[in-house]
């Protein structure tokens, strides 16, 4: 490489590498290190406790509930959100009147911050003013506070996620649909294929890469969900609506239990990385 090339390299690359190392790579490595200590963040971590943080995490009902909640988000994202997004994409990719407007409206919640979305829905679910009050006051019942119902509060979180994110997935599918060669569909139609057959045998397989991508984002997004929880439920009632990240926040950060919080972070890291690698290897090889 020329002197000019070396000079470029020495000036262009180190800033990015340095920043990445200091604020991404090192903290992740340190999380693994701190997770073996009982440490409140002051002085140096000295009270080595081995795997106790992890042991506590595994046996902890609130953390397990958070894991289940994350899994629930994934299930609902895949079984409800993706079919909905795909269905709507099929409707608005065509020449239906106002298609562009509908796409804009459905995408709109995605550009709002999760915090704002969570707070808006905190109001919507309020037993005194919100949606439940329409039904309860019409029937003359006591106000119903969904967000305070430990059996059903998490469904509120799921509804907000659906509301906020289906438009993003719809837009991915719209993009995918527009990349499909229309002559294939026309040829199939001339051969007498019904519209369902055309969808099932042509559109759906050709959307494969986009569907795999959409699944990937659903899962990754579900695993890191946090911002919606705080304004909506704050993890309550009775710690039934935490996700892994909100658990890490409420039980690690706010109490400055650095070792324990780091262990939760490492658990999340392992889940994310295992998923990302496994998924790419299994499903996204050819994309």
């Amino acid at each position, binding site marked *: 490489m020329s002197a000019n090339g070396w000079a470029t390299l020495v000036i262009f690359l180190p800033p990015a590498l340095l920043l990445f190392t200091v604020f991404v790579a090192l903290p992740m490595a340190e999380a693994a290190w701190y997770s073996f200590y009982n440490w409140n963040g002051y002085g140096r971590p000295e009270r080595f406790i081995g795997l106790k943080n992890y042991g506590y995490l595994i046996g902890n009902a609130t953390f397990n509930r958070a894991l289940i909640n994350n899994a629930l988000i994934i299930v609902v994202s895949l079984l409800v959100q993706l079919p909905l997004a795909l269905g709507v994409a099929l409707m608005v990719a065509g020449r239906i009147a106002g298609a562009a407007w509908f796409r804009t409206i459905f995408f709109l919640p995605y*550009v709002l911050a999760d915090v704002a979305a969570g707070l808006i829905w905190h109001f919507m679910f309020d037993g005194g003013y919100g949606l439940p009050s329409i039904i309860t006051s019409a029937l003359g019942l006591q106000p119903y506070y969904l967000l305070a119902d430990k059996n059903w509060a998490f469904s509120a979180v799921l509804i907000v996620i659906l509301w906020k994110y289906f438009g993003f997935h719809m837009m991915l599918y719209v*993009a995918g649909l527009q990349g499909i060669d229309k002559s294939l569909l026309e040829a199939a139609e001339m051969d007498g294929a019904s519209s369902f057959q055309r969808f099932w045998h042509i559109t759906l397989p050709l959307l494969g890469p986009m569907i795999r991508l959409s699944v990937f984002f659903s899962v990754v997004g579900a695993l890191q969900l946090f911002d919606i929880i705080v304004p909506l439920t704050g993890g309550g009632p009775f710690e039934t609506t935490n996700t892994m990240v909100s658990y890490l926040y409420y039980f690690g950060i706010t109490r400055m239990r650095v070792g324990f919080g780091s262990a939760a972070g490492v658990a999340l890291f392992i889940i994310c990385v295992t998923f990302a690698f496994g998924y790419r290897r299994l499903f996204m090889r050819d994309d």
Partner: protein
Amino acid sequence: MGETSYAIPESAAAAHEPSGRQPRGFGSIAIFAALVVLAGVVLVPILATAVNGFKELGDLESSPFSLPHVWVWRNYWEILTGYRYWQVLGNSLLIALLTVALTLALSSMAAFTFAHLRFFGDKFLLNYLQLGLLFPVATAILPLFIKIRDLGLLDSYWGIVLPQVAFSLAMGVLLLRNAFKQLPGELLDAAMMDGCGYFSYFFYVTLPLSGPILSTVAVISFVGSWNGYLLPLVVLNSESRYPWTLGLMAYQGQYSTAWQLVLAFITLTILPAILMFLFAQRYIVAGLTAGAVKG
């Protein structure tokens, strides 16, 4: 996925369905009706938020989903004439602009070296940076907090900006490197023959030719920073430095019983994002979805 590109919808006219697949008559009306209902479901929470900000509390309590009996402009007016609203928006804007500028600068320079220079360990370093795509900020947030504290950056804008940039670098480098590599190689050869160095090539050829992908990276990092919550929550103490996401939560904490004020505050704080989205929709949708697809 690296090289795939999909057409991103820009307008209704961009969608061409074969004539036979156009829904007609009843089917088309049913679809339209379904879309109208769905659009209503999507819009009602936002509209209810905005409209209820114009009510007295009593009016809000008795009829939360109707127009105000009396339009109360005072709620909005007091927020708009107060210091707080402008301060949180200003903080968010400053943090987001610094994040975007640094992300563009650092990731385009790094992407340029990965695209054009062969050196020992280049593959390894590229993969190293790509690790950032695999896990969210939250996984390392506690050690990150300790690091920011030890660097003396707690309660400062840089304590938010630098980690945000660091976490956007993986995305930025990946998108930009792929784009830089797709610029015709003859350009570089010709420039080198004419005695143009890499620096001039970067500033006079690569960057000017990469507008769309740079704007994609800018949109992604701007939206991420503007909407960011966890990092400022952990880093900041002083309300005077709060971005709007934290400011909104603080406001809600203070006026939690006065929903009409909280709803007015929400409306005003999400307004910039909504306006930006409506005016620059093409770029934002293309940026957020294309970024996802290519990333």
